[in-house]
């Protein structure tokens, strides 16, 4: 059995005391240990932001990429070595802002990657500008009169874009978050985990209390059927007094991207011989096609 301690590295996080990123960090490690995954079997891919530093603090394969680009980097890694459990972990600005296009296309691809968004409704690392998930009216240095855009609704978008697993959890509820991440890892195909994450320094509106007063678990709702896309869409539109968490939508059995790539049927791309033994022959045929 692996243990959360297996993921320990002697580097102290630079997050502010009380930051929701600690919760996400702990939940991820709990989930990995819970699934008996070892550090070398996992690859974290992050972008840039407070939360994106997570791989630096966690013993596992990691790639801290550039702002907004973890999804394509993760996709390349996964296609080259689909034995790795690839987990993207990045902020709301990273994932839904600058990285929005990759978000869209990863979902319709159904690439088997867990996508954890540290959703603090703010830009943390750049010191407090409004983010795509900031609510209308939210005052920051780049929205001094209050944000005048409607917030991105990640769950609704995910449903529209064809995601096969759509979930939300809360950094203040470690168990539920770890649980949700476990489900996401177990899901075959793209899995979104929108993790509500208080930023204690710059977001004085969406605090632990604010979230706590609002979140509820769809799992606790009798009869909620996460396989019904229309119901899930209605659920996804809820935001305000009540904020649904849990697995909002999951459809199983859809082929992953990896399942469908011919070259990946032979096994891991990275384990294939760099040139096949019969390549010399093939090469003559290749050249002959030009003669």
């Amino acid at each position: 059995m692996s243990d959360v301690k297996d993921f320990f590295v002697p580097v102290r996080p630079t997050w502010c005391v009380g930051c929701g990123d600690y919760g996400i960090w702990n939940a991820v490690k709990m989930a990995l240990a819970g699934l008996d995954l070892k550090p070398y079997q996992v690859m974290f891919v992050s972008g840039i932001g407070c939360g994106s530093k997570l791989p630096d603090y966690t013993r596992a394969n990691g790639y801290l990429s550039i702002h907004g680009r973890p999804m394509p980097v993760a996709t390349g890694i996964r296609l080259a070595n689909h034995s790795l459990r690839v987990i993207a972990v990045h902020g709301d600005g990273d994932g839904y802002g600058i990285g929005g296009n990759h978000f869209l296309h990863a979902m319709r691809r159904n690439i088997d990657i867990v996508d954890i968004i540290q959703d603090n409704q703010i830009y943390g690392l750049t010191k407090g500008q409004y983010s795509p998930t900031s609510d209308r009216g939210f005052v920051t240095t780049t929205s001094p009169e209050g944000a005048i855009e409607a917030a991105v609704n990640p769950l609704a978008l995910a449903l529209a874009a064809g995601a096969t697993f759509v979930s939300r959890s809360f950094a203040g509820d470690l168990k539920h978050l770890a649980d949700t991440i476990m489900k996401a890892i177990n899901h075959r195909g793209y899995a979104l985990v929108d993790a509500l994450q208080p930023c204690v320094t710059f977001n004085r509106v969406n605090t632990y209390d604010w979230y706590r007063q609002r979140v509820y678990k769809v799992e606790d709702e009798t009869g909620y059927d996460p396989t019904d896309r229309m119901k899930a869409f209605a659920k996804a539109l809820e935001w305000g007094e009540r904020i649904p968490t849990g697995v909002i939508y999951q459809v199983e059995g859809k082929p992953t991207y990896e399942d469908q790539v011919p070259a990946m049927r032979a096994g891991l791309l990275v384990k294939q011989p760099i040139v096949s033994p019969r390549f010399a022959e093939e090469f003559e045929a290749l050249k002959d096609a030009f003669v």
Partner: protein
Amino acid sequence: MPLNDMTFIIGGEAGQGVESSGAGFCKALARGGLHVFGLPDYRSRIRGGHNFFQIRAGTRPLYSHGGPPHLLMALTEEAVLRHREDIPAGGGVLYDPEHAVDAGWLKARGILAFPVPLGKIVKDAGGTRAMVNTAALGAATGLTGYDFSKVASVIEDNFRRKGQDVVDLNLKIAQAALDYVRTTFASSFDYRLEPVSGPPRMVINGNQAFCLGALAAGCKFVAAYPMTPSTTIIEFMSARAARYGIVTKHTEDEIAAVCMAIGAGHAGVRAMASTSGGGFSLMVEALGLAGMTETPVVIVEAQRPGPSTGLATRTEQGDLLFLLHASQGEFPRIVLAPGTVEQCYEAGIRAFNLAERYQTPAIVISDEFLAGAIRSVEKEAFDLSEATIDRGQILSDAELDALDGPYRRYQFTGSGISPRAIPGHPKAVYSATSDEHDEEGHITEEADIRTRMVEKRMRKLEAARQEMRAPETYGSPEADITFLAWGSTYGPLREAVDVLNRSGRKANLVHLVDIWPFPGEKVVAPLSRAKYIVDVESNYSGQMASLLRMHTGIVVNARILKYDGRALSPDYILAHLPEEVK
């Protein structure tokens, strides 16, 4: 009677198969042992407009297009109007009398008119309008007296996928046109072609040659977003992906393309992204990511005229200084600029070796001219046994097993190269990071580590510079004129040098393929003996001349620059020689 030395132009609308029939004719000529060079010229539109294809055929290796067309195969009226001025006396125009061609105009200039009812021949044979180009091929074969069996064999190969009926129909059409011409014009056309003995040669363009190199190098991952003139790379690889166990990905944009390639490179496979200048512009940020994380990745940039969208289907060498300095900050990169299809093949192999040896991005820069022009070349020129694969310093599983202490991915070493471990091994667990980092890969802000890490990375350039090859010098050793060139202009310049030397002048050329790290001393050597240096480039500002001065202090004496989107030809170069050396 000029034998086996002539130039054709096939001209017509986009959608009339001008390019495919030009390429097919080239192949037919090569099958007869002739050397060929074929250059497509097309517009950024899918149907209509005026496209044309130039073919040169000869008995010596050909490196360029150029020279007046002896035979114009005109599929439209416009084709005649566009090209007739270039045809020399004794040349001919093959056209469909359906089109209002002014035969008088031609005759007045000693140009032969060969009206051939192409449309009717096709129709009578039961073909569709798209087959008129086949008729034109047959007719040209007839006029030049060339061996029809060669043309027939190409028709068979090209249409086999579509079924024997289509093959037969096309053969019938070609034959009918040929017969028509033989009967109608007998041997009134002076220019003749006939097979000679020679080895079977490939007829191949730069993109295809590069792909063969990449396949030989074991490239396993190709990501791209379509962009002329690079698109045929991802298309070529995609068509063969299943067979060769390659993953190809048409991505949502170029940022994703290069990031996926970087991810795949990081995971341990040979990976590349192909694009043109506009797409490369979008890859600039991630280029630095690969530099910082020391991830091997190959990027092919097939240039086209800018700025911005520019001339989407034409050629230019306008991106050199951009590629060399692209992305914020300083980090090592490799830049290769092949100039011939052989060099494209070779670059396909070397780029992957260099990228992995130095754990850094390697950029192959070509352009629309090189990417799309086809040339006959010996099969032996693409030698697989010379394609040695060097993956650089990668720790084996055994080495990793034996590791004690943490794996230091970015270990400070004398060469700057730190042994790589492929993720997935229990001892190879580490994070790569785009922030400055310490030897283990952890983010750091310490000034001392930062300084040493910059130096470690940049040190890789030293060994790389050593293995960058000297420019190729071609021509008269005692030259009065030395041309300086890089990339695709090699061919036209080589032919210009030959013309000059044959005419009693003394000329040579110094051509760089290995551009970065700039092999300064190796470039100085041939140039320091030069009496008069003429920089020849397909751009406005003479970027290689600037680079040369920056790194060696050498100032060229003159420049021949062209930036109208059309490839430099030997004729153009000769016509634009500076007064001092005219």
